[in-house]
């Protein structure tokens, strides 16, 4: 083999690996988006109906449903592609960090008694930031745009205080729809189109 052949092997292999590497993770946004939005709506309905303290802890169902779904879809992706890129690792670690921050924040605020004021703006902001950064890393503009919009909207729940605080849940469900569900579906369609 000549040096030219070797250089061609390097260029060809690199192009082959890089060409198809980001066509994964199409279900992860939806795996977190739908449980979050649905539980927010359920919690809102429960608070409106019963208005008892236990209703406020329904948010803990989000990680209980989202985590197994995430693990399932991550395994499915890995079975399909059999490799992991640096971008995938960075995005996964970022979302794990966001998830932990939201959960720890939820418990800490619940114990400190400021749950009604701060938790939902925090969840909204974290989801928006995560969506924005994922869009930047993947060069997928709809996620970047949805991330910016939802980050800006994350201040909205702050305006519902006192007796109006359950309305924070409704606002958060809308923000999560913008941050996770809409870009999730757009990304899924983008990947399906690129795979065919």
């Amino acid at each position: 083999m000549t040096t030219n052949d070797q250089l061609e092997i390097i260029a060809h292999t690199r192009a082959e690996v890089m060409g198809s590497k980001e066509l994964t993770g199409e279900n992860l946004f939806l795996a977190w988006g739908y449980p979050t939005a649905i539980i927010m709506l359920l919690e809102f309905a429960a608070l409106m109906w019963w208005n008892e303290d236990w209703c406020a802890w329904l948010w803990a169902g989000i990680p209980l449903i989202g985590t197994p779904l995430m693990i399932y879809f991550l395994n499915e992706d890995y079975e399909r592609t059999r490799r992991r890129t640096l971008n995938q690792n960075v995005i996964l670690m970022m979302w794990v960090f966001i998830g932990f921050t939201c959960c720890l924040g939820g418990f800490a605020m619940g114990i400190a008694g400021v749950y009604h004021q701060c938790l939902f703006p925090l969840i909204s902001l974290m989801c928006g930031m995560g969506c924005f950064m994922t869009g930047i890393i993947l060069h997928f503009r709809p996620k970047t745009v949805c991330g910016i919009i939802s980050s800006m909207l994350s201040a909205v729940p702050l305006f519902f205080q006192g007796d109006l605080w359950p309305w924070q849940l409704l606002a958060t469900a809308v923000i999560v729809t913008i941050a996770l569900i809409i870009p999730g579906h757009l990304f899924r369609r983008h990947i399906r189109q690129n795979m065919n």
Partner: protein
Amino acid sequence: MSEFKFPVINPLLHSELRLKIMVALDSLESADFMYLCRLTDSTRGNVSIQIATLKEAGYIEVSKMGLGRLSHTVCHITRKGHDALSAYEENLRRLFQCEVPNSAEKVC
């Protein structure tokens, strides 16, 4: 007249299959054994031997994930492997410039 030294080509990376494996691992965070077989279009036995050679040279790290029948082999490139591949590519380019008649005077 100054003496020209030809760049030394790493014999370990000069095999087509090993080179493909190294380039793939250099572009990825990690890759499964089956992915490498598919990418290189080679048999499991062949890829397994090349992986063992690269591991012995300290160019890649191999870890087993999962348990029992579901376990799979995952490979990562090491810093030493990344440096060796970069040096190999650089030397190939220098050598290629020597082979091209018009640029021969400039480099050699």
